[in-house]
């Protein structure tokens, strides 16, 4: 189990760990994965009136790469519009973290999480 430096950094010092109240109107919540598969990610975004993500938090049950993928994603989505956030691809996360092939699914899960969070927010405002 050799981990890349960036994975280790995010794992040792995860950014933006936390929880927002999912009932609040300005919060979008995405929870993806399954305990059976050993990964569950919860990503939450706080969106301002201009449709820009002001803040993001996460909690992840999963391996170090899953934790790092979600931690990095919370950094990336801040300051982005919903469409810009949705445009983030798992390959970008995987590349930044230098994930090995067996860990690519962690970055896929993170991409699913941001998509789900944006959908959740949009549903509330539909």
């Amino acid at each position, binding site marked *: *189990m050799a*981990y890349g430096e960036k994975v280790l950094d995010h*794992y040792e010092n*995860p950014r933006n*760990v936390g*929880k927002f109240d999912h009932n609040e109107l300005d919060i979008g919540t995405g*929870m*993806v*994965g*399954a*305990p*059976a*598969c*050993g*990964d*569950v*990610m*919860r990503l939450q975004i706080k969106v301002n009136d201009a449709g820009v993500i002001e803040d993001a938090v996460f*909690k*992840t*049950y*999963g*391996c*170090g790469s*899953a*934790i790092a993928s979600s931690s990095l994603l919370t950094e990336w989505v801040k300051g982005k519009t919903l469409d810009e956030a949705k445009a983030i691809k798992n390959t970008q996360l995987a590349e930044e973290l230098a994930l090995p092939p*067996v860990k690519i*699914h962690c970055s*896929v*899960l993170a991409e*699913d999480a941001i998509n789900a969070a944006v959908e959740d927010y949009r549903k509330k405002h539909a």
Partner: protein
Amino acid sequence: MNEKTNKPIYLDYSATTPIDERVVTEMIKYMGPEGVFGNPASRSHAYGWTAEKAVEQARQQIADLVGADSREIIFTSGATESDNLAIKGSAHFNKKRGQHIITCKTEHKAVLDSCRQLEREGYEVTYLDPEENGLVDLEKLKAAMRDDTTLVSIMHVNNEIGVIQDIEAIGNACRERKIIFHVDAAQSAGKIPMNLENLPVDLMSFSAHKIYGPKGMGALYVQRKPRVRLEAQMHGGGHERGMRSGTLATHQIVGMGEAFRIAREEMATENERLITLRNRLWDGLKDMEEVYINGDIEQRVAGNLNISFNYVEGESLLMALKDLAISSGSACTSASLEPSYVLRALGRNDELAHSSIRFSMGRYTTNEDIDTTIAHVRAAVEKLRDLSPLWDMYKDGVDISSIEWAAH
């Protein structure tokens, strides 16, 4: 970390053990040009004779530990080969009598994969479910026996959860039906006293490196009275009474013999010490929330503790515990995302199966090692639970099993 060696604290004795210094000292005598290097099968000169004498002494030392006759010990390359030879060898030999085999889902892969191979050859195999505590239910085993069953293979001590099967009761049930009984004793030899003279076991696999002997060395006990017959799986010079050809590795065999001799002498005192260490470890962890011991705590080998830390994923826990050499029941580390098949067979739910850690203690484990381990584990579990959405949900009273997860 162990402060003296600056290496992680080793708590993976079920995976392998270091070779005891006393064993190393013996083995070296059989290496190098000045050593006893002859081929034990060479009958025509003193080099061969002295090597053969050493091999026979080791055979006796191994037999002595388990109460066997030395002529019942066949040397192999390890417990995996012994399992292969026992299962395929007896199934092939008895093919005309029947083609049904019974084993258990929590067996070692060497047993399960040998059975899978026999299935490909047309045999039928029953894989028993263990009870929740990891033990095989004797009545269920008896119910699975058929007239065409020729072999039952049940391990003595499980490598992951350390539970001890009642091989005497299982063996008696096999004898009643004239079924051959094989026991994988890789994790029990030298840890549990046994006397094969009285035990109803026909075939038993041993490993050297699980009890401070060299890797690449094992043995198979093949009962003489009544005689159990096997079809060889390795053909060649007809060594080991035709059951396993190949030049005997004198230095390895001597190492195994010395390791078994030491185990016989020190087993009782060592077990007492290991149980104290195990209790110390469990006492240091058991007041944490949502921790569970996997496998029966009474019917358990001394040095093993397998614990699930609920709502924490095993691989991330191992990563947090990089100063400890331990293993996760979860096989995520080997790139497959399956949780431990042993824990799944016990009926553990997915979260618990994904969050198990095996601590296995041994000859060189100290109280200080255990105390450091407790502190590390508590801190790591706390850190990861702070990161875990499942822990949040548990704390909020959400029933995780009630959620429809989208499996990916």
